[in-house]
């Protein structure tokens, strides 16, 4: 084992992140006989996966027998505006039912149909009722199930341990990472034959977000610094329904399940405005009138789906337009009304945590009054570029899965496709790592100098007596990203954002931290800021280059999709290996689509 000046551990497979993807990867690798370690910034079971509400998409066909992987594939590609990695979309659609059934074998208790099968619910962009769920707390069920499985297998979990940087061997392969314990501030090195990035998203760089403090893009950033590429970083999902009032909960998620279960969006004039915003691409499958849409809830053959269930990017943009046109609610959102459409008993049974959340945090009884909602930064479609089948990045030994990986969702993710993404590609990453190890060409050394440099950089803020408060920098960054790289973008503002990000980089180099190293949140934030800046810069750069509007990337100066831009992803790379080294973007052609998949997309509705 490597001689390290710090506490040191060695693993075959080291997983960074203990959400759904990380835990599923751990199970797979350990079942293949490998020594597995999981590192998480928080306690086990607290990852952002718990916030997923509506369900996990899998074409099991329990409600609609017509459903199958081919329809799910098509829905995913259309929802992603064809920017997706088609092989990922294929694997995801094919494998998600098995991953759901497997969760049940490990103890998950999904809601049931009358004949005892797993109940599935309707969601935006999914042609059939496809989301297996547990009320509106499906993410909690998923993480708890995987967590309990991991615990029963005896996997090593390093909790409240923050990874600073990946470490290579002399041949450029991944050899592990360097981290510190939050509780003590002591450093620790991990050498590993493979590292799986499963660190989730980046939403904390925006002011109004559904993401927790953890969503700082650590995995995105570390992979980029280590030599991997990031794709689709301009594609950010603003979930249409976040809470807007009180301010303290602004951005908190309101599940799409409210609309799936009959809730409608109303403007200040009381009009169901979504019917005015049906794009051509979805017209054939969307109801023409409110009456037709309402029939669909009871009987999917009696009408087409209501316009409220368009994909999230369409709904978020429509809400934004209504508010700008002066038809918003008092606190700058619109109304989401289920009270006038379903009985209080139904609402409390189907949406218990939404009931709870509004009652306790906003003093609103959703069985009696409409909710005030507006778009919130929720999810990044972009992420580390990987090979679909193995989750391997371009750096030998480095893998990525879940929200940290890019490709599956293209320019826009359908609700419910995230939880299934975690388990399908978490498993594939574990398998990919195992196969890489089996092939034998693994790291032969551990570059301690890389680790030492990261440690020194992490400690620098303690040596500055005068310097900036990391909280102030984070606050200013969030304000700036919300204003200039938000839901609707334009060229001059993106250029302005890029300039401002350079200034932020200088500010980050001047952070001063007060207090000691033991459980010091100010210091912890100081070590998160380089990641936040890296992902913010990647998003601003890719957004400035994509001169069109597509999915989760909307340009007011280029309001339409441009077929030329549908041929490639922007792939970001970093020259220099550090957070403040320059980044650049190149066009990375989309994976050619096999004819049999093309045929699925061309099928008429």
């Amino acid at each position, binding site marked *: 084992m490597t001689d390290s000046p710090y506490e040191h551990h060695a693993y075959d497979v080291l997983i960074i992140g203990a959400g759904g993807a990380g835990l599923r990867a751990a199970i797979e690798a350990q079942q293949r006989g490998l020594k597995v370690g999981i590192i998480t910034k928080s306690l086990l079971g607290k990852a952002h996966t*718990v916030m997923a509400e509506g369900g996990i998409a899998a074409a099991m066909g329990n409600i609609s027998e017509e459903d199958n992987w081919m329809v799910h594939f098509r829905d995913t590609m259309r929802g992603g505006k064809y920017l997706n990695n088609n092989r990922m979309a294929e694997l995801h659609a094919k494998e998600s039912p098995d991953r759901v059934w497997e969760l049940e074998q490990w*103890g998950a208790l999904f809601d049931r149909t009358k004949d*005892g*099968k797993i109940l599935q619910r309707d969601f935006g962009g999914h042609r059939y009722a496809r989301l297996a769920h547990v009320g509106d707390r499906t993410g909690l069920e998923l993480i708890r199930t995987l967590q309990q*499985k991991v*615990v029963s297998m005896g996997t090593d979990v390093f909790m409240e341990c923050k990874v600073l940087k990946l470490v290579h061997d002399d041949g450029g392969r991944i050899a592990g990472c360097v981290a510190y314990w939050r509780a003590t501030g002591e450093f620790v090195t991990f050498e590993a034959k493979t590292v799986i990035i499963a660190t989730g998203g980046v939403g904390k760089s925006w002011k109004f977000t559904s993401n927790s403090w953890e969503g700082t893009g650590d995995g995105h950033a570390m992979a980029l610094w280590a030599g991997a590429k990031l794709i689709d970083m301009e594609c950010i999902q603003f979930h249409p329904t976040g809470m807007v009032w009180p301010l303290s*909960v602004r951005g908190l998620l309101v599940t799409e399940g409210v609309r799936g279960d009959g809730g409608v969006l109303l403007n200040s004039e009381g009009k169901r405005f979504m019917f005015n915003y049906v794009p051509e691409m979805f017209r054939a499958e969307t109801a023409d009138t409110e009456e037709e849409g309402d029939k669909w809830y009871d009987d999917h053959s009696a009408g087409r789906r209501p316009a409220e269930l368009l994909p999230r990017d369409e709904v978020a943009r429509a809400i934004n337009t209504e508010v700008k046109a002066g038809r918003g609610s008092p606190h700058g959102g619109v109304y989401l009304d289920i009270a006038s459409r379903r009985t209080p008993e139904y609402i409390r049974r189907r949406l218990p945590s939404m009931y709870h959340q509004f009652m306790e945090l906003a003093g609103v009884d959703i069985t009696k009054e409409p909710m005030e909602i507006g778009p919130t930064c929720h999810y990044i479609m972009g992420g580390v570029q990987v090979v679909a089948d193995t989750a391997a990045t371009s750096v030998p030994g480095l893998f990525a899965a879940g929200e940290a990986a890019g490709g599956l969702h293209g320019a826009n993710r359908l609700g419910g496709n995230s939880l299934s993404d975690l388990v399908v590609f978490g498993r594939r990453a574990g398998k990919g790592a195992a196969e890489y190890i089996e092939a034998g060409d693994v790291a032969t050394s551990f570059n301690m100098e890389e680790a030492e440099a990261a440690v020194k950089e992490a400690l620098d803020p303690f040596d500055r007596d005068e310097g900036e408060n990391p909280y102030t920098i984070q606050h200013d960054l969030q304000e700036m990203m919300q204003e200039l790289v938000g839901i609707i973008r334009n060229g001059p503002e993106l250029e302005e954002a890029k300039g401002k990000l350079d200034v932020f980089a200088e500010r980050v180099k001047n952070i001063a931290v007060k207090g000691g190293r033991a459980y010091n949140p100010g210091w912890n934030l100081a070590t998160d800021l380089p990641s936040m800046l890296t992902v913010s810069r990647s998003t601003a750069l890719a957004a400035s280059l994509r001169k069109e509007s597509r999915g989760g990337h909307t340009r007011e100066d280029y309001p339409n999709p441009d077929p030329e831009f549908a041929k490639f992803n922007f792939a970001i790379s970093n020259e220099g290996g550090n957070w403040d080294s320059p980044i650049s973007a190149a066009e990375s052609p989309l994976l050619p689509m096999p004819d049999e998949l093309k045929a699925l997309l061309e099928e008429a509705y």
Partner: protein
Amino acid sequence: MADVTMRIWRGDATGGDFENYTIAQNEGEVVLDVIHRIQATEAPDLACRWNCKAGKCGSCSAEINGKPRLMCMTRMDQLPEGPVTVTPMKAFPIIRDLVTDVSFNFEMAKRVPALLPPPMPEGGYRMFQQDVERGQEFRKCIECFLCQDVCHVIRDHEENKANYAGPRFFIRYAELEMHPLDTNDRRELLKEEMGLGYCNITKCCTEVCPEHIHITDNAIIPLKERVVDADYDPVAWLGRKIRRRTKKTAAEASVQPAP
């Protein structure tokens, strides 16, 4: 709005004391908002644990005015006028300020015998809503460990921890014991090693549960009955097993062909 005074315990395992912070507050805020404002301004090193700020992850447990609560779900405007006291959970060792070492719970989790279901039939298991609902109530648990914190068996008796699972894990055991597919039997373990008998059903755990799980009535009391039944009256136990929709009959149902 008027400023508020927060009395926050600061220190570590070696000791500590209260510090007062007088700070602005806004309409609709929760305790965690005010703690965050203190961090961002006066005390960047004030340690507290949090993640989702939505009552879903169970990270920000503390004692507010002496009562175990989630800081993210406690609205400032619902606390009495005057200073607000925030202290770390008492049942666990202090790491720093409001952060405690909750590893006891993760150790207890390791001792739970896992679900043991029959092989899955083609097309998935069949289970019925009324059978999964009992377990679903317990699976709402967000592992905030407030029930563990308030439980007097361990709150004031560190020595009991080695042999006492606590309310959080009693609902976990109850969930598994009531699981329609489970074939494991954990009753002996509950009695001999998990200290089920120590609980004298004062319902403190139920009172503090932010998920409103009926920990005592729906989990602990039925578990106690099962353990007692197994010990003293096998015939009555068997009778009840058959009359109720038990996990065994449901497991059999699960392998029947689809209707």
